[in-house]
């Protein structure tokens, strides 16, 4: 059973199953359901970006929500001004890449909790700018009626079309992240996390990779923002205040930092579960908080780590059972 669950065939089957679920979703879900799944996908992308910075490169960032905000504002303002969405999308990513690069500089000087606080301060500063610079961002009134993109004559205005649009873009972005993780870049990030001194002595330019980890993670956050803006169509600075950054951090760790699918699972616990657990109503956050604390207590590697542990537990059990079997056979043979 466990062998089957971890076999390559099953993994591919499972991935296809999820893909099929996502593709057929519009045929059995209403508009609100589609909106939620699209939201889950978008937040997953933001978490994927943070996972690159935090999970793989080990640089604590509490500013991912701010990058989602920057991306959303850039895309919102540009598309409202009539710029085509793909251009706005690229600009969002590019701007976040540059800002993320600059934010990486403190990481060269300070680590761990200090870095956490620098990024936290940055996140709050971005929020204040969004709220106070009314000439640009319309302050607390937010941006309204952000248009949904029209690509090659395909109008994505309706929930049905827009869902497929988000699904397509998120798939491309996920493949991009998948590629980065498996490339020498990804390996260098892990080296940076595990042992920066050794990485340096082996010729990894830790300085450049630290900055790069921040810039890439932030750019992906910006891309998530570029999808967020046309998805919600109305947003204001409060959506991107500190709680979003902290929530993204929770999602990455709860899902499983440093694993590819962790952010998707983490985002599901924060976006999808509250809707499915409607019975819990206002108490969902209380339950969520308790579950996170208990999870951290018993399995700090998150839900993915929990799965791994479960599988290896059964595997070990089976192996020891086999061993016992063999020992019994041997002793019987000796007896003869």
């Amino acid at each position: 059973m466990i062998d089957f669950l971890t076999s390559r065939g099953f993994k591919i089957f499972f991935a296809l199953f999820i893909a099929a679920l996502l593709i057929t979703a519009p045929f059995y879900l209403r508009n609100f359901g589609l909106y939620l799944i699209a939201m889950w996908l978008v937040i997953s992308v933001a978490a994927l970006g943070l996972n690159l910075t935090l999970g793989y490169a080990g640089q604590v960032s509490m500013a991912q929500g701010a990058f989602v905000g920057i991306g959303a504002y850039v895309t919102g303002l540009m598309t409202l001004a009539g710029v085509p969405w793909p251009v706005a999308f690229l600009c969002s990513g590019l701007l976040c890449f540059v800002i993320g690069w600059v934010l990486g500089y403190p990481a060269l000087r300070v680590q761990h909790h200090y870095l956490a606080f620098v990024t936290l301060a940055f996140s709050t500063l971005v929020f204040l700018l969004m709220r106070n610079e009314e000439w640009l961002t319309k302050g607390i009134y937010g941006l309204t009626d952000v248009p949904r993109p029209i690509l090659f004559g395909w109008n994505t205005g309706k929930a049905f079309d827009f869902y497929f649009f988000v699904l397509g873009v998120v798939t491309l972005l996920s493949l991009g992240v998948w590629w980065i993780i498996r490339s020498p870049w990804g390996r260098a990030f892990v080296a940076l996390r595990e042992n920066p001194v050794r990485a340096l002595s082996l010729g990894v330019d830790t300085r450049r990779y630290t900055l790069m980890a921040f810039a890439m993670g932030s750019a992906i956050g910006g891309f998530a923002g570029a999808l967020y803006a046309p998805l919600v169509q109305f947003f204001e600075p409060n959506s991107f205040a500190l709680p979003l950054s902290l929530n993204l951090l929770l999602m990455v760790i709860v899902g499983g930092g440093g694993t590819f699918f962790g952010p998707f699972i983490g985002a599901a616990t924060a976006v999808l579960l509250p809707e499915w657990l409607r019975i819990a109503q206002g108490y969902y956050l209380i339950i969520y908080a308790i579950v996170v604390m208990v999870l951290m207590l018993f399995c700090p590697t998150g839900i993915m780590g929990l799965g791994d542990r479960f599988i290896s537990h059964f595997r070990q059990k089976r192996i020891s059972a086999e061993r016992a079997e063999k020992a019994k056979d041997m002793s019987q043979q000796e007896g003869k």
Partner: protein
Amino acid sequence: MAAFIQLFVSGLATGAIYALVAVGFMLLWQTSQTINFAQGEFVMIPAFFVLWAIRFLGIDFWPAVGIGVIVSLIILGFLFKRMIVDPMIKHGVLPMVISTIALSIFLKEMVKDFYSSQAQPFPGLIPSSDLNFFGAVISTQNIFILIIASLTVVALNFLLNGTRLGRAMQATAQNPTVARILGIPVERMILYTFLINAALVALASFLISPIYLAKFTNGDVLGLAAFIAAIVGGFNQVRGAIVGGLVLGVTENLAAAYISAQYRGAIPLILLIVVILWRPHGLMGRAEERTV
């Protein structure tokens, strides 16, 4: 000038409260490497313990304050250490950070769902009136806060530096292994710092709630202020956290009046970033040894 003095004194009073919270925050970091992201909520909640005792036990204000202190010591001191910090400590800093963020959500939601989401008036510890110093109007509340905070700091300083117990606690913070060899009950010393932290946040809560009202979101601002104060002052010195708190309270107030009210919240953050980049060990702190 009168306006300046007014702003300065009220900034000092807020700063003194920040300092109390920052000292607790720093003590936890020093003795057990706990970065408590729920510290702000720890300041928010003791006021609600008191309000809860008044509402449901039907007792007077002062006995309720006593109950508030005891409940704080038990929940925010003892149980926090036993149930969250002790089991987590072996997992390292990041899971602990996540866990305390979850704890802060938990505390906020508990107050919101089971008490009230509205701001609650909280009785002042002393009757409020205004004093007039050469044209500057200063409220007795602020003076009271400054006196109480100073007394607390002096008492804490005496405890840490003037008594055998305090020396043992300092030894625990500096080098737990050697402290243990010298026969210091390290575990108990760590527990004492958690209790001191609980007492400090409870005190801060009772001082600040009459001014800002008791509300479940109060912790957001206070927690951030405590981090900033602790880092600006220097993470490894009690006097650093005090200076950090006072500097923060005063700059915040003066910046709001003379620079920009909208960016009131931004000045401390810029201060934080500048200090971290320019003097990562804080204004008063010693450089931390880097471990490889």
